[in-house]
């Protein structure tokens, strides 16, 4: 594990993480709005969780029988669990609105994707013209949506079981499985001829999520509803 930590500090990941995390920490203290504080905090967690994800994924890679399954099987599970961990905080908080929980979950996912995309960008040659930048931009948008939506799914699970303590954990666990499967599909298909499916799946989820949230708004009379 010490070797892995040393290996981690030889990469650019800690630099990327702390260069974003520290300024955002100042912002969290300065901002007065409670909702903004929550969203920024979860975004920061997304940034930090990349460090733990890297260490855990590297740890699994050390086992030769597991190394080929890391990207498709293990990394999605590890990353989804790490991104969703602070959502446990909402298990006890009854005064937080449903939408804020989902936005915080998305923020954690997007924070994670920011680091992943930075690492991806830094490991490829710099684009010298705008057309060369387009595939990178498409990749950025879809990775961001994928991570954001896969975390939002778990936030959604917390909102639909707010008043049902006993079945909350199985529902959230089931949604974790769903998120991890979507993540795994994205990882596997993105470099194949079915990349278009990997690229469009997060967008479909996003619009479905918007439809579900709008449906709830319509049913409640069109306004924000604080619990």
């Amino acid at each position, binding site marked *: 594990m010490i070797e892995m930590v040393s290996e981690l500090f030889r990469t650019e990941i800690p630099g990327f993480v702390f260069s974003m995390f520290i300024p955002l920490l100042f912002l969290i203290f300065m901002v007065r709005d409670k909702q903004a504080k929550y969203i920024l905090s979860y975004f920061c967690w997304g940034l930090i969780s990349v460090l733990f994800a890297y260490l855990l994924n590297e740890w*699994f890679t050390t086992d030769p*029988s*597991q190394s080929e*399954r890391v990207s*498709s*099987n*293990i990394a*999605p*599970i590890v990353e989804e669990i790490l991104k969703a961990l602070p959502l446990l905080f909402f298990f006890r908080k009854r005064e937080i609105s449903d939408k804020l929980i989902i936005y915080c979950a998305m923020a954690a996912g997007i924070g994670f994707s920011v680091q992943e995309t930075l690492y991806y960008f830094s490991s490829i040659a710099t684009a010298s013209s705008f057309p060369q930048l387009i595939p990178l931009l498409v990749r950025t948008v879809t990775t961001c949506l994928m991570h954001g939506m896969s975390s939002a799914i778990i936030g959604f699970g917390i909102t*639909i079981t707010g008043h*049902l303590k*006993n*079945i909350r*954990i*199985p*529902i959230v*666990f*089931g*949604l974790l*499985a*769903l998120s*991890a*499967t*979507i993540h*795994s*599909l994205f990882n*596997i*298909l993105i470099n*194949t*001829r*079915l990349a278009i*499916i990997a690229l469009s799946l997060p967008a479909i989820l996003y619009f479905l999520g918007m*439809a*579900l949230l709008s*449906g*709830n708004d319509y*049913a409640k009379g069109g306004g924000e509803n604080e619990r």
Partner: protein
Amino acid sequence: MNLKQQIIKKILPLVATAWGIVYFIVMIIQTNEAMRSVNNYLFVITCFFVTIYTMVQAIKTNDNGILLYGSLGFCCLTLGNIYFILLHLVSSVPDYISIGYFSDICCYLFFLSALIRLKEYVSQNHKLINNVVVFLSVIAAIICLYAVISNNDLVMTVAVTLLDTFCATVAVSLLPNRNARFLAIMMLTICLCDILVTLNFSSIIALLVQAFVSLLYLLFGQSFISLKVGD
């Protein structure tokens, strides 16, 4: 009953039954891989249809309870099966326990949650037993997760059998209630079929289950829609 309802409630199950009979007879006479592929694709299409149908009903009725949990369960099941089809299309079928299978199994967590919720509507008794079953099912799901990470078939078989057993137990307790009976019977049938196939009791039973699996899930989806209990 309008045409759309007639198609969904009567015609589709009839078509699924006819296909099941034909499939069973053909496969008994001679194993046909093309038929097996078609059956697999038909099952995925059925799951996809049931997912969309139940999800649309849940959104239309703003259901935040049993129907929504059921539709999420079908979502998990469909995604798990689509996972394998997509991998097959890119010639990347894994030879280890993959996350798609884990998603398949976790659909039982949603179905169990829906059954527990229904049980609470029907009767406020046995809350402790319900909570114990839920707790044990989460343990079984965690064991499943371990089996995926460690690629252990035996542990996976145990976990799947446990989840099926818990679902079947809750389904049996719902049988006396008239409103919940159809759903309980379908859940019981699916759990028993899954246990028999997972434990490999008999190849004939496995073939029978394969043949009528689309019909089973069509009826299972209908049992959620026809339930007249909501939040």
